[in-house]
Every structure is written in structure tokens, then in C-alpha cells.
């Protein structure tokens, strides 16, 4: 079984506990305006020409974005940092794109990871079928579940999809065996108003299994990536909330009983 990936990042220390290796699956059903991994959106390999300079000479080079790899080979790649993972109680992380877009490969990878005693984390937008969400919340050890906005109209406008399925899936994920951390990208003017935050807190109130919330203040990182392959850059105009506002949001969640990480 093969999977299309666009990167493997070793010494990833923001995608779950300890020292981890994160693999990025290619393909995502969402198209968030602030996306900083735009190379993860299209599902297959992308090729484009890029100008590079060496010794004062400009040359055009073909760049290939993404590669297909068998799940077994991928697992071997991820296993390379076992010594660091064991020492740090780390593990492997699967991100994207949306890993559940290549669900069979994801499930196989999680099974292999379990057999080899790795701690596994899946970073998901939550946009997938209920069945798939059920399986992943059984196979993974930790799910980093992204929740962007409770306002469906805004959600649709800025991510390209409705949040209904995502909200349903969060409920499913919280019933599985995996631990769930909620990840909220914070974007000024999109989801950082007191009302927007209150509505999230209210909504989450009944789900007592949810204990950890990661707040990810938006950062402008992706513009050079967009330029590379002529994808329209929609980030102009977005801003991170101010430090003060982030502090207030942190406090709101803490007061509601969550353990909060900033930057995740």
C-alpha cells in the first residue's frame, strides 16, 4: 500500500509529546485562507520550475513536490529516530494535508506503529467520514483535533467547507480510546472575538474528556511557499491577535478548566 507524502520532519517538537518525527500526508479537503502548508492541499505529486542561483548564474530547475512511498518503507523511515523517541517519550506524528484523506494508508501506518511500540499522534482537520474518525480514534494514541470556528458561515467562507461534519466528528473522537487535544488557530477578526471564543467554550462544556487546548496564533510563514507554485495567496490582511488578546483567550480557556498551551 502506498501513500503520497510531501515531507518528513525529524526532531519535530511541536506535534505532540517528546521528540517526534512528523510525516505530512498530501491532500486536504479544506482550503483555509491562512494555510501555511499549501503544498499539502493537492493530493498528488506537483512539479514546477524554479529559478535558482549559483555562482552568479541563474538556472531553472524542476522541483518535484511530494512522493509516493509504501507504508512499510515509511514506517522504516519514521523508525530512524527511535532512540530519541524512547529517550524523550516521543513518537511519530501524522499531519498533512489531511491524513484521513488517505485513510487506509493511515490506518495501516497506525497499526504498524502500534506493533512497533511507538506513540502515535494524528493531526486532523476533523473533516472525514464518521467511520474513519471512529477507526482513527481507536488506532492512534493522541489526536490533535483542529477546531477553527463555531460560526458555520465564516467557516465555509474561509476554509471552503462547513463545520457540521467536523463538530460531529469531534464528538466521535472524544468517545474513542485516543487522547484528544483541541487545536485552535487564532486569527484576528476571524475567530478571536470574545463571542467566538465564548461560543466554543460553551459548546465544549459537556465534553469532560477534553482537557488540553493548544492555541496556535496565526503566523505569516507561507507566502514564499505560495509563490513557488502559483497558488493564490489569500493571507493578505490576516493578522495574529495581539499578545494581550491571546492572554485573555488563554485565561478564558483556563478558567473553563483546560490546560492551555500556546504555540502547540
Amino acid at each position, binding site marked *: 500500500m502506498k501513500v503520497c507524502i510531501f515531507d518528513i*520532519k*525529524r*526532531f519535530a*517538537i*511541536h506535534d505532540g509529546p*517528546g*521528540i517526534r*518525527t512528523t510525516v505530512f500526508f498530501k491532500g486536504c479537503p479544506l482550503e483555509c485562507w491562512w494555510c501555511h502548508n499549501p503544498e499539502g492541499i493537492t493530493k498528488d505529486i506537483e512539479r514546477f520550475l524554479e529559478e*535558482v542561483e*549559483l*555562482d552568479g*548564474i541563474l*538556472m531553472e*530547475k524542476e522541483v518535484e513536490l511530494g512522493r509516493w512511498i509504501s507504508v512499510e518503507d515509511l514506517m522504516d523511515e519514521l523508525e*530512524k*529516530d527511535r*532512540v*530519541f523517541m524512547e*529517550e*524523550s517519550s*516521543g513518537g511519530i506524528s501524522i499531519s498533512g494535508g489531511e491524513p484521513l484523506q488517505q485513510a487506509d494508508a493511515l490506518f495501516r501506518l497506525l497499526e504498524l506503529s502500534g506493533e512497533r511500540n511507538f506513540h502515535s499522534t494524528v493531526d486532523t482537520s476533523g473533516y472525514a467520514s464518521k467511520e474513519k474518525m471512529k477507526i482513527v480514534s481507536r488506532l492512534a494514541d493522541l489526536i490533535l483535533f483542529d477546531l477553527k470556528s463555531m460560526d458555520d458561515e465564516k467557516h465555509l467562507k474561509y476554509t471552503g467547507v462547513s463545520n457540521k461534519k467536523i463538530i460531529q466528528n469531534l464528538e466521535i473522537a472524544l468517545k474513542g480510546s485516543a487522547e484528544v487535544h483541541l487545536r485552535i488557530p487564532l486569527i484576528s477578526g476571524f475567530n478571536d472575538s470574545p463571542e467566538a471564543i465564548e461560543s466554543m467554550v460553551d459548546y465544549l462544556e459537556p465534553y469532560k474528556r477534553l482537557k488540553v487546548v493548544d492555541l496556535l496564533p496565526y503566523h505569516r510563514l507561507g507566502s514564499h511557499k505560495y509563490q513557488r507554485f502559483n497558488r493564490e495567496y489569500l493571507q493578505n490582511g490576516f493578522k495574529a491577535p495581539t499578545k494581550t488578546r491571546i492572554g485573555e483567550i488563554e485565561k478564558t480557556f483556563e478558567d473553563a478548566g483546560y490546560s492551555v498551551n500556546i504555540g502547540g
Partner: protein
Amino acid sequence: MNERIKKLRTQSQEAINRVSAERGLLVTEFYSQKGISKLPVSIQRARCFDYILRNKAICINDGELIVGERGAEPRATPTYPEICIHTLEDLDILDSREKVSFAVDAETRKVFDENIIPFWEGKSNREKIMKLLPQEWKDAYEAGVFTEFQEQRAPGHTVLGDKIYHKGMLDIIDDIHLSLNKLGSNENADSQQQRDELEAMEHTARAIIMYAERHADLLERNARKLDDKSDKKNDLLAKRKAELLEMARICRKIPAKKPETFHEALQYYWFVHLGVITELNPWDSFNPGRLDQHLFPFYTKELEAGTLDRESARELLQSFWIKFNNHPSPPKVGVTAQESSTYTDFSLINVGGLTADGDDAVNELSYLILEVIKEMRILQPGSMVQISQKSPDKFVMKALDIIKTGFGQPSCFNTDALIEEMTRQGKSIQDARRGGASGCVETGAFGTECYILTGYFNLPKVLEITLNNGIDPRTGNKIGLETGNPADFKDFDRLMDAYRQQLEHFIDIKVKGSNIIEEVFASDMPVPFLSILIDDCVVNGKDYNSGGARYNTNYIQGVGTGSLTDSLTALKYHVYDLKTNSMDKFIKILAMDFQDYEYFRYELLNHTPKYGNDEDYADRLFKQVFDFYINAVEGRKSPRGADYRINLLPTTSHIYFGTVIGAMPDGRKAGEPLSEGISPVQGADRQGPTAVLKSAAKIDQLRTGGTLLNQKFTPSFLETEEGMDKVTRLIRSYFKMNGHHIQFNVVTADTLREAQKEPEKHKDLIVRVAGYSDYFNDLGKDLQDEIIRRTEHEV
């Protein structure tokens, strides 16, 4: 830091390096006396030592608590004309050069011109050595295949054990008498030589006692002067007077008798240190090694008795730190400054590790010393932490807490690996546990080993010579073997075999040269004072330079393993596997320095396997190259009975070595620096730090006497407790894989670029260079550029 230390620190930082003629003149006076040359050489050296200490100026700086300067004032740096002579031209260069200059005043210049140079010309050790070395050695040396440490400095590179904390000089003299009695009245030549050596040792032990007493005399005089001044009751003066009298008391007690207080122990060490670096100019500074272990008994005893508290211990340690910083390394002669474009002595205080019995050695004093390192933030002494499996995380985190302030100290060492390296070499496990690392990363049994660094070895240069069938393309001279035209090699193994043959050829030449030099030092330059400090010279009645130490090792430091591995990898990949270019063509492209082959160079740099990415294609060759090197060196014995061994560290020689090599198959252009230590080629590692550590751990580091691995982090990485914890795990994992050493440069490239533009605003910017730290401002621009280029692992 209290006011006193602040003042002393500023004085030390602002003191100007000066060439001092004092020692050179005293040595010249001594040897000009009639009848000296008729004395046995060891006696000559001992009396010369005594003559210097008896006649040199005594310096006591205002407010200081530990006394003694090698020169007449801080940073006044002597020369060693019996080893090598500074010409007038050398002095002019030292005086005027931009980086790390040494001021030379007219009087000093005159003394060199009229006294020192005329007397020593034709007699110095360097000239003797150069006459004896064979032509093939000189050819290889001039081609830049290797360097030679002992060409202008004495063998050194040893570290003191715990001897002086248990024995005064009078006790050591008793030991010398025991050895003399054992010799009896045996008349053979060997016994006579031993008797002379033991007599010389006693002479130096008495000389250092005399030298301490001269300090006591001056301290007392200074105290009396305060009496005259203090017509009014002045608390400050009274306090200083009490201090001076206490210091005088200490100088009358030690080093004659063993120390009993914390202050006595530090002052004793400092006299011994001055003795060692005054006797000769041993390479890579001598240092107290396991300071937290040596001082801990004094610390706890005094704490219990109430005669010392943590703050006064801190102040004494800080005063001690300043003494090191007052002593730059003696400047070189000739135009060899390039070899080491920065120059400091390499004292490396070891903190932590294991006790001789194998228990965790981290103690309260280890933490206090780490605090001192952080507060002092000075170049010398350098510092390192020894981390064993038993060391607490708290200790590692405390070290990282200093590392993240970005001055490159302390570096991190794997105690368990150090011990295993030493036991493999045949040291007892207890001696191994008492040891550590010195200089940059060199493994040693402290107090019992004479381990000599013989010079850096340019591993990639040998590939260039191999590719040119024994000819050095830079000069056209044939200096290697004729291993065949590489265009005729039918497979890659044939190339590797040719490389191995060339390597063995040059190691033969190197070792022959080192053996000749070693014999000159053994016969003409004994060091009786250093010999009384290192076991078992006294018991054996044998000088340190003649094999008197319990353990003897000669190291050859391999340089450029990353550049060599990547070059071999590129040849294998492009010539034999992908066949993108023939060998003939590839060599022609190198000769053109990639001119008109930029596309190919781009492929070499970006789409060719590289060491440091945890990929076996390149890493397997790294292992093979390592095996070639270690097999070529190990199994050889030196005249004094030392085993030749390897370590992998460059100091700054990777820059000099780069200047003598043309374009390399890995895409490196002519003249650029080589990779340093076992670090990947600058910028070749693209998979992050874990991949670098995995690659580096693929060689059997336990078979070396030290490897150096640099990693650079931006400060952001260590901002949080969590980040620090993850770096702790990173270090522990590397050490689990038997990694020897890792050091972190925590600084942003932007900061460095700013510092390059506006050096005056970044005077205190210290960076890790390669196994040691230096002021960024004092580095040459090429070295500055290289440090900026080193991969930053941004997170």
C-alpha cells in the same frame, strides 16, 4: 558578582596582550653563565626554572585574592627562546596584526635584538628539529598534509589529578628521596640519569616553594604599607590588610605543605599552574581538570566549620577564573598564524562526571561552579560538563541554562564514553573515572597520562593527491605514491584502495617525524617540574618527556572527515553508479574549479547524498574512511613507549587545510574551509539535528580519543523549560549511542551578521569555534563567515 570581582574582571578584559622579554632574558642570562652546559640536561633545566622564579618580577594586583602572574603584569606573555625564537619581523607582525595582537614596546624589541636573538640563533629546539626531519616530511608539511604541534611548543596537553590536594612539595620531595634510595649506588648510566632527573625534580619542587615565599614577602610588605597610610581608622584598609596577611600566610604554607582550606587549595593549584607554563610552553594549557571533585572536601569541611560560606567560595572561584583569563597563549613564530587564526590557551575545567568508585560525582560545588561560569562569562578557563547516565537531569538543564546565553560554554561530554575509551586503551577503570577531556575534546587520564597531540592531519588533501596519482596539483610536486591514474580504476573499490595506500604512506611520514621530535625533547628538553606532578614520573625516576608517566599516548587529529566522505560519495554516485561524468572529466572539472560547470556543481551540492543526513549511502563511506584512518595509525609505538591513536578535531586547522586544497568532488570550491570535527560539511545536513547525531554515531567513537561535533541553535529553541528538556533528551540520546561530545552554538545568524558589520557593538559576543570559544570579533572574516553559514536548526 561583587564589586571586587567586577573590577578585577574589567581589568582582565581590558588588559592589553604584551610580549614580555622577561623570561627570554632570564633564560638567556642563565645559559650564558659559565659551566652550565657541562651539567646534566635535567639539572640545567631545573636550575633554569629556579633562576626564572628567583628573578622574575612578582605581581600582586589590587584587590585580588589569588596571586601570581606568569609575566610582570596581567597578559604580559613570555617567550621561550630555547624552544623557538621570535625574530624582529615576528615581533613587528605581532605588534601590528589586526587580530589578537601582542604589543611590543621599543625596550622589548631592543632586548630581543641585542640579547635574546644573538644568543639563541642556531641553538633553539626548533632549529635542531628542522635539521633532523627528512625531506619527505618537509614536503608533506609544506603541502599542508599535516601540521606539527611540537615544532614551536613543548609537549604538554596534560591535566593535573588530585595529587596536590593530598601532598605538599615537601611530601613530594620525600617521595623523590624514596626513589633515590631505591636506586642506591648503582653506577650504570641509566641509574645516573635517573639520579640526575630526581635531583632535578627536587630542585624544581624547592623552586616553587621559594617562588610562593617571594609572594608572601611582597604581600607582607604591601600589608605594612597599608599601616602607614591608615592614619585615620579605615575599615576598608583594615579589611584589605587582613586579607593580605591571610594570603601571605597561605603562600608561606603552600605549596610546601598540603592545603587544608579552600583558599589554600586554589592558591596551591595556581602556583603549580604558573610553574608548568613557565618551565616551558606546553601545548594546550594545563588545567586543574575535575575541579568540583578536588575542591569538594575542602568546601564541605569549611562549610561545617563555619570558616567559609557559599558566597566567599564563589568569590574565590571567581578570582581564580580571572587568573586564567589573564594568561593568553604564547604567540607563535613565523607566518604560521593562519593555522590557528584565533589563539587562546585551552584550559578546560571539567564539572560533574563520576567518582573513582563509579558514583554520580555531581555535587553542590558542581552547581556553584556552573554559576561562576555563567556570571564570569569570560574566555578562559573554558568549561565543560561531564554527563554520565547517572548525572541528574537537573545538572544537564543547569548547563543548558548557561549554553543558551550564547557564549559557547560549557560543552557537553559523555562520561561513560570517556571511560570506555580509556579502559579500551588499557587504563584502569579508576584512573579512567578520574579522567575526562581537555583542550578541545581530548580524552585523558588526569594526573597519570602524558598524551601528546602531534598535529592535525588533512584527510581530504590525501584524496586530492590520490586523484592526481601522487602529485600535489597545487605545486606540481610529486609527494605521494603512484597509485595509478584514477581514470583507469575499474570500480570504486579500486579508488578506495588507492586512497588507503596514500593515507598509510603519509601517516608513515607523519609518525617518523613525530618520533624524531619526541627524541629531541626527551634528550634536550626534560620538564622536571611537570614530572613531579604527573604520576609515575617520580616513582620511575623518569621525565615526563621520556615516558615517565603511567600512561603515554600520541594522538594524530584527523580533520575534514565530512568533506572527505562527501567527496568520495560524490565520486561513487556520479562516476560509478549514475555515470553522469567519467572520472577523467570529473577531475578536469575540479581542475577548473567548476568554471562553466555550475549546473553540475548545483547537482553536487543539492542532489548528491551527503554525510549527516542519516542515510547509509554516504554514512557507510564515513565508516570506511574512519576505519582506514584508525587502522593506519593504531598499533604504532613511539620511542618513549606511547601508543599512537586518533582523535577527530580541527581547532581551526580546517580553514588552513582548506586553503591548500583545490576544488573537491563534493562541490566545494578551491580554498574554501573543510568540514570541522565530525560535523557534516557546512550546510550539507538537511534533516535536522537527530539525523546529524545518528550519522555521527555510526562510527565507533569509543575507539577514538575524542571527536568533536558542533550543533548550532538559535536562542528561541531553548527559551522554554520544554525546549530545554527536549535538548536534554537530544544529548542523552546521542550519548546512549556512544557519542563523545556535542557542543551548541546558541546564537542567531542575524546577530552574527550584525556583529560583523558593527563589531564595536558586539564586543562581548563569544561563539563556539570548534571545541573552544572565542570572541567573535577576534576571528578572521573567513572563520566568521563559516560560523554564520553553519546550519541553523530553526524550529
